[in-house]
């Protein structure tokens, strides 16, 4: 990509052109704000019905003056692209900011550490918290990870290291699995629970998360293994190493950061899952360290339960738990990013 950009001598002028057009397109903004306030128009209506058309016209005029007819096309595209993209960012920021703002009201050390025994929907926020849910989340996700990561890695190995004919079939089915709706995964484990009469516990919840985590890990791990130059493997094989030693001693170390990314993205995929856990686990308000017996609450199911009631303190608790969950997800996600960065540097060096 960098190389392609270096071959575009006109690129700098283009950035200036787009900026020009974009700045010009903002000219109607004060006007529209003024009209909206003085005429008491609905802000949404004036934005969509007044500002956008005016913005398009202003940008087109500037584009035409500066660059002739093709400037108009440029202007329309620039305005529309910025508008829609800004919308995506606004939605994202709205989610993040509302969780952070509302969540920080509820959150405190006691909220993170205490569990939920003796707490009713109206109990003040000074008592009780999500401690049990944090523990539950970690335990359930850990159980899933123990099963899904080795298996996903093995699938990735099979897809990249072997020459078997069924690889495409396996890939198709992995993709099919990655489209599995989470609630169906819950129903699947529920049907097993009812068929075998094992009790609902943290373990069954972990089982329900397993089909969701597996394809993510397998897919990302496959991408990571593909990034390792095949010459490395050939060199190892040519030196007489058997395949498994070539893998464990050469390819695995080279792909380490990418595989960690696979693990983290898999974790991020399941840590926020709600529906399958509601179907397969009983909630509990006390801290439980035994995932094989009795109920367990995770952060998503905690949010789910509290959002069901309309009391203000309950909603505050839900926001608080959402913030804790978001921090957890953000932490995993950030870690995956940092490790992924190493990966891309390495792959560039290998090219």
């Amino acid at each position, binding site marked *: *990509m*960098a190389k392609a950009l270096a071959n575009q001598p006109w690129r700098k002028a283009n950035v200036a052109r*787009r900026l020009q057009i974009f700045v010009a397109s903002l000219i109607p903004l004060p006007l529209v704000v003024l009209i909206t306030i003085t005429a008491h128009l609905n802000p949404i209506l004036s934005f969509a019905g007044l500002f956008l058309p005016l913005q398009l016209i202003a940008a087109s005029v500037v584009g035409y003056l500066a660059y002739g007819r*093709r*400037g*108009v*096309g440029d202007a329309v*595209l620039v305005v529309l*692209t910025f508008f829609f*993209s800004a919308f*995506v960012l606004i*939605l994202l920021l*709205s*989610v993040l900011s*509302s*969780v952070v703002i509302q969540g920080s009201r509820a959150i405190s050390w006691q909220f993170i550490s205490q569990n939920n025994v003796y707490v009713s929907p109206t109990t003040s926020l000074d008592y009780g918290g999500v401690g049990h849910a944090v523990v539950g989340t970690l335990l359930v996700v850990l159980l899933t990870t123990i099963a899904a990561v*080795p*298996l996903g890695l*093995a*699938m990735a190995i099979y897809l990249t*290291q*072997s020459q*078997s004919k*069924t690889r*495409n079939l*396996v890939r*198709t*089915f992995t993709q*099919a*699995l990655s*489209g*599995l*709706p*989470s*609630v*169906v*995964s819950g*129903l*699947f484990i529920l*049907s097993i629970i009812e*068929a075998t009469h094992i009790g609902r516990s943290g373990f069954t919840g972990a089982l329900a998360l397993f*089909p969701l985590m597996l394809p993510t890990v*397998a897919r990302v791990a496959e991408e990571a293994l593909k990034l390792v130059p095949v010459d490395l493997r050939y060199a190892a094989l040519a030196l007489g190493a058997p*395949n*498994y030693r070539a893998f464990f001693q050469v390819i695995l170390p080279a792909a380490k950061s990418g595989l960690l990314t696979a693990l983290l993205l898999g974790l991020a995929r399941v*840590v*926020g*899952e709600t*529906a399958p856990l*509601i179907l397969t686990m009983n909630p509990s308000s006390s801290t439980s360290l035994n995932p094989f017996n009795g109920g367990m609450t995770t952060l*998503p199911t905690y*949010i789910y339960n509290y*959002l069901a009631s309309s009391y203000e303190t309950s909603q505050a608790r*839900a*926001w608080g738990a*959402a913030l804790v*969950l978001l921090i957890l*997800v*953000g932490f995993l*996600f950030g870690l995956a990013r940092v490790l992924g960065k190493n990966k891309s540097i390495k792959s560039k060096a290998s090219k």
Partner: protein
Amino acid sequence: MSEPVQRRKLVAGPLSKGDKWFFRSTSIAAHFAFVLVALVLVFLLVRAWPVLQSQGLGFITGNTWSPDQKPIVLQLGPMLWGSILIAFVGILIATPMAVSMAYLIVFMLPKRLAKAFTTLVDLLAALPSVVIGLWGLLVFTPLAASWAEVLNKYLGWIPIFGVSNAENGFMSSPFIAGWIVAVMIVPIITSVTREIFSQLDKDLINGALALGGSRLSTFRKVILPTSSGGVVGGVLLGLGRAVGETVAIFYVLNLTMDINWAQLLEPHGGAVASWILARFGEASGTEKQGLMAAGLVLFVITLIINYLANFIVNRAQPWRKN
């Protein structure tokens, strides 16, 4: 000519014992994907069979869900149609946003900003659906309801924006659920589209610009036609996700068995996945089997959509040959 030297077989096979085990174990693990899909289908089918048998085709087309009636009637029609409707609205909203975002990232932003935007979009994908549901219920619904009110006021004469009673308050409608779904599928469509855009032949685009085309005409006549396959695939992947979305829709939609054909602002609708979640608490016996059947139907639908989507995406990305 003398007897030819006996050739070694050119097919490379595992030579050492360790290798045999290495390949055998990974092969078993890999085929577990196969087993897992089959297991899900078989278990759900076994549990759902009595209901499917007793309800027949009406399970999909009918619109009565009364587990207390005798004989019991379980029909899923409005929920199925609701899922399709919401997914469709979600895609209509999400596709322009996602394609613009991909265009912005690939063709307009300087490299460093483009990376930052990619990260932001991926972050959106990582948000748990229960958090989106929470935000959707408490923050977004009042906002979207005011949008819906404006839409209804000025475009109410178009049937899809009409409502039977404007006093109902425009909450809990398929319109809002569609927006929530859009928020969740924008990252999927964006990442597929971005991938496709970034692999386009730059000479094609530069050529079009050199011939005097504007950015708009280049986008419409060069970029879109060459990448449309991939974009459609990305949209289908989003559709698969939208159909299976459970918790977020459960919060923002009023689920009723009263079918809502296409009145987007009417405060009721349906979604199969959310229906399963909503009924699960009280369900027992036959109704639970009915929910399993609903799950089976949902799974089969997403399987088909995903298969199509992956087929199209893979065909649109020939450079990703394995």
